[in-house]
């Protein structure tokens, strides 16, 4: 079932949580709402579920305007960050809850309920825990039960609010893969909220990047990672090096130094941010006439890549850079900690320096 969000606006006092958001979630896709905490992603999810009311705008479920439909009639499945399992009920009773609460006319018989609950528990591979209480389960198991419970009422859409946020790194990774597999089996339209870019890029069909209550970019994981359209997306996805400078003809002036850039449209003198990924920077000799001077502060050479951390010099002191070198590149150059070198980017993405905040905001979401 498709979900359309139209001009949703939500204000908490002075704080704008959602600023006129419009999004389309096509049927059967798994979409990630990604952004720093306080960007409005959880609020948007709760508005879609009906747990929160938008100030204005519409939620359209399957072509029908559901803005004024009560939560219990929207037929959405919701998975909470902290599971929200019913503590005093067994796992079986938790999963059976939604079925047992149905009006008498629609309620399946107790034997049907039993069948359904066990098939769901098998789906999440935890049927052996049916008689336990939530407190006796690990975090990962609880979240799987929460998912089974949400699926029991056969929701038209599945909404997950930071589903792996409270779990440790290893379980998180496991559950991620598991969720993706489950989605491939069920094909139920799903939206999950996360602040973890790796999680979003790995699991989702499409990623919606949000910041300060606005949608910054929508696209497949490859598209948003390889072609960021805004400074925020550039700095939020993966590590990135930033140069503050002025674009002049084909050069970017960074302090007294200059870098060549290939964006012809920035012909006029313009204050810009220039971004380059760590693997897009080359380390060249200090005598090179192009490039930004920096001093090597650390060389980390475990894994396939060598990571070189650098501190900016002259006008760029206080700036930090990171360069990733392949093993061959590393061997071709002799690099030492403390050495002064110059950085030359193979490509630069330029964005006019207006009042853009590069740092994610730190408000609670």
């Amino acid at each position, binding site marked *: 079932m498709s979900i359309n969000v139209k001009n949703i606006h939500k204000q908490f006092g002075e704080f704008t949580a959602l600023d006129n958001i419009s999004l389309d979630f096509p049927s059967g896709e798994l979409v990630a709402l990604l952004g720093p905490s306080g960007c409005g992603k959880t609020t948007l999810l709760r508005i879609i579920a009906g747990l929160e009311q938008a100030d204005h705008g519409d939620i359209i479920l399957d072509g029908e305007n559901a803005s004024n439909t009560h*939560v219990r009639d929207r037929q959405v499945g919701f998975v909470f960050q902290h599971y*929200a399992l019913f503590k005093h009920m067994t796992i079986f009773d938790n999963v059976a*809850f939604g079925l047992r*609460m*149905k009006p008498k006319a629609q309620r399946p018989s107790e034997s049907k309920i039993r069948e359904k609950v066990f098939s769901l528990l098998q789906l999440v591979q935890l049927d052996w825990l049916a008689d336990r209480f939530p407190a006796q389960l690990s975090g990962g198991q609880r979240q799987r039960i929460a998912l089974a419970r949400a699926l029991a009422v056969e929701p038209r859409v599945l909404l997950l609010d930071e589903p792996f946020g409270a779990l440790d790194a290893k379980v998180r990774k496991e559950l991620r893969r598991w969720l993706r597999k489950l989605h491939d089996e069920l094909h139920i339209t799903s939206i999950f909220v996360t602040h973890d870019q790796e999680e979003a890029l790995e699991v989702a069909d499409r990623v919606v990047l949000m910041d300060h209550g606005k949608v910054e970019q929508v696209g497949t994981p490859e598209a948003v990672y390889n072609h960021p359209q805004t400074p925020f997306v550039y700095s939020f996805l993966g590590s990135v090096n930033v140069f503050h400078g002025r674009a002049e003809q084909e050069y970017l002036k960074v302090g007294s130094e200059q870098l060549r850039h290939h964006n012809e449209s920035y012909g006029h003198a313009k204050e810009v941010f220039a971004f380059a990924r760590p693997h897009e920077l080359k380390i060249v000799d200090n005598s090179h006439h192009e490039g930004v001077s920096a001093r090597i502060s650390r060389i980390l050479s475990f894994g396939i890549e060598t990571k070189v951390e650098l501190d900016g010099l002259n006008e760029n002191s206080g700036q930090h850079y990171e360069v990733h070198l392949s093993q061959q590149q590393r061997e071709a150059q002799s690099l030492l900690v403390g050495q002064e070198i110059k950085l030359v980017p193979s490509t630069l993405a330029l964005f006019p320096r207006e009042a853009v905040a590069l740092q994610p905001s730190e408000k609670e979401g």
Partner: protein
Amino acid sequence: MSTLAIQTNASQTTRFEKNTATREPNWVKYLLLGISLSFFALFLLLPLIAVFTEALRKGLETYWLAFTDADALSAIALTLTAALISVPLNLIFGVAAAWAITKFEFKGKQILITFIDLPFSISPVIVGLSLVLVFGVHGWFGEWLVANDIKVIFALPGIVLATIFVTFPFVARELIPLMQAQGKEEEEASIVLGAKGWQTFWYVTLPNIKWGLLYGVILCNARAMGEFGAVSVVSGHIRGETNTLPLHVEILYNEYNFSAAFAVASLLALLALLTLVIKSYVEHKISKKSNA
């Protein structure tokens, strides 16, 4: 008043004690122990023992006679009736108020919280007097009540009203912090799963608060049965009719019928002790649940 269960965390105190870096000198420990124990013995234990020794001074037969007396029996019946009416009413009110305060946002919330505490800060005598001013013969509704032949003051309704007023905060006060700590997530989960409001309350909220609720009801009941001041003003002390147990004790005492007075008093004391036992059991249940 915070009536949350006091939990003695044995393992933590032992660790604290064993460590020389955190241990206080022995004399501090024994001084504090001595002060609190002698205070307890002098002001709590001694009066309690006195009640029972005085009650039994003239033998078991007189002790027994004090209860089988018609006036005493009617006092017991009245006390139970008043508690039986006021405790359920305050139970309903307490749950409703705690629910409203913890699950909804509304204007005047702070005022409601303050008003719930009012009976704790106001003298019970004033409560009684205000009831007389409103419902008495010369009070606001006095004429109307007389015209319709309804007796509030010097009758059961007055006693119940006074009891409700003084026991008003117990249930709500107990539930508010508990429900605040539990948050709304389980209720939200229940609603998303399609449960109706009352289903959510019955199957999700109530099981989560039942021990706290029982604890509040026990305290509420203890106070309802033991209330003296407010009830004294509105009861009129009519023997065999509007005398509750505490009032009956006073009357017997004023008549120099000490052994009967103490006998009835011992009944109230036993009730209090029983309350303590049930309370400890409930506390034990609560702490077991929170450790689970």
